[in-house]
């Protein structure tokens, strides 16, 4: 039996020898991804927080809540949207406004509602800018170009259909009221820096 310092591993009774080679994994063994956005305070814009894998949007919400909205992150509301349902615009170098690259003009059609997110610099999170009405994704980009004046160049735009977004319920906002005292969760007083330095020195 495989011996470990972790008693949980020992309880798994793993044999010393594995059958080699291990069985091949199925090619697609991961769930699809969802993008999550956090609103830190009522009235503030939603900002992109990160990606989670999940079988559906409800579970994506569950996971996003624990991945991205605790440990000192203030959160008032959270929303998720399936990655493949987001239209990602071209990227520019940071000097050029990506909107300048969109040709054509907004149709004026208001049949669908879209949420617009801007990233103003490479590496910066996308922030919610507002909601536009248009006939499709491309049209929404043009609507956004007309609607939102820009004093600084926009690096990249995300567009998502409003109806594709799963938003936390207002009445559930209290799930972010957790115990303030979280010291037991952190290893802040665990001083290992000296030992790590010594180890590195030893390794040369």
């Amino acid at each position: 039996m495989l011996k470990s310092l972790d008693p949980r591993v020992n309880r798994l009774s793993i044999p010393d020898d594995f059958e080699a080679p291990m069985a091949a994994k199925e090619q697609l063994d991961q769930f699809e991804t969802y993008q999550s956005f956090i609103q830190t305070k009522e009235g503030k814009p939603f900002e992109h927080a990160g990606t989670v894998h999940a079988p559906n949007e409800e579970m994506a919400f569950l996971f996003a809540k624990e991945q991205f909205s605790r440990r000192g992150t203030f959160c008032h509301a959270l929303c998720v949207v399936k990655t493949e349902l987001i239209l990602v615009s071209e990227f520019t170098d940071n000097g050029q406004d990506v909107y300048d690259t969109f040709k054509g003009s907004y149709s004026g059609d208001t049949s669908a509602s879209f949420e617009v997110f801007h990233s103003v610099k490479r590496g910066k999170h996308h922030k919610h800018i507002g909601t536009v009405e248009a006939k499709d994704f491309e049209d929404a980009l043009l609507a956004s170009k007309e609607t939102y004046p820009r004093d600084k160049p926009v690096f990249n735009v995300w567009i998502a259909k409003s109806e594709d977004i799963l938003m936390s319920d207002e009445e559930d906002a209290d799930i972010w009221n957790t115990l303030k005292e979280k010291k037991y969760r952190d290893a802040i007083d665990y001083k290992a820096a000296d030992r790590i330095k010594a180890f590195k020195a030893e390794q040369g």
Partner: protein
Amino acid sequence: MNQNAIKDLLYKMADDQLILGHKNSEWTGFGPLLEEDIAFSSMAQDKVGQSWQLYKILNELGESDPDTVAFMRNAEQFHNSQFVELPNGEYDFSLIRHFLFDTAELIRFQMLAESSFETLANLAKKIKGETKYHSMHANIWIKQLGSATEESISRLQDSLDKSMPYALGMFEVSEFEQDLINEGLFAGEEALKAQWKTKVTEVISETSLILPDMESITPVYGGRYGKHTEHLQPLLTEMSEVFNVDPTADW
């Protein structure tokens, strides 16, 4: 206020949270997917944190400090229900236990928000958000896997059938039950069980799972009075390993 009654209530709640928090934390690094590993571990830590808050109230009522109470007692001095000390087994069992326990946890703390013991009522209000998320997490998982594939349904069904006698054991009444009710400290296990049944039935009815007939099941009692399975003492020994090596160790 009947001190013995309130202490008995606090001990059984704190012990449940500590033991289940520890059991659930055993999934850290072994979860079915990374996101769930993080979420489940995080909720396990919430439970340990809640037990600590309850032990702190006990400390204010004259009991030893939380670390001593958590790590220095033997199995027969613990008041947790036997349900929480059962081995994790496979994830289906942990999920069913999480669902059955956390549904009760949410309702218990909602009831305690009305307690005449203000310190406890305030704590119950403070952790309302945490317990609400726990229950939301459990409900969504059960609804998802409870109607997904043949394997997921039969696994959950087996765990549900196996769990039910132990789950009903959570509501074993205290010797001070009537005092708790009369003094408005806690509306009592029977009232809690009734609300719990309603909620559990509601969630299960949205799945392909069949709820066992609770009236014909004999609950597994004893935990609240220090009678435990053979699983608790080894768990306590493992939990207190560091404390026993160096009782003054601190982060």
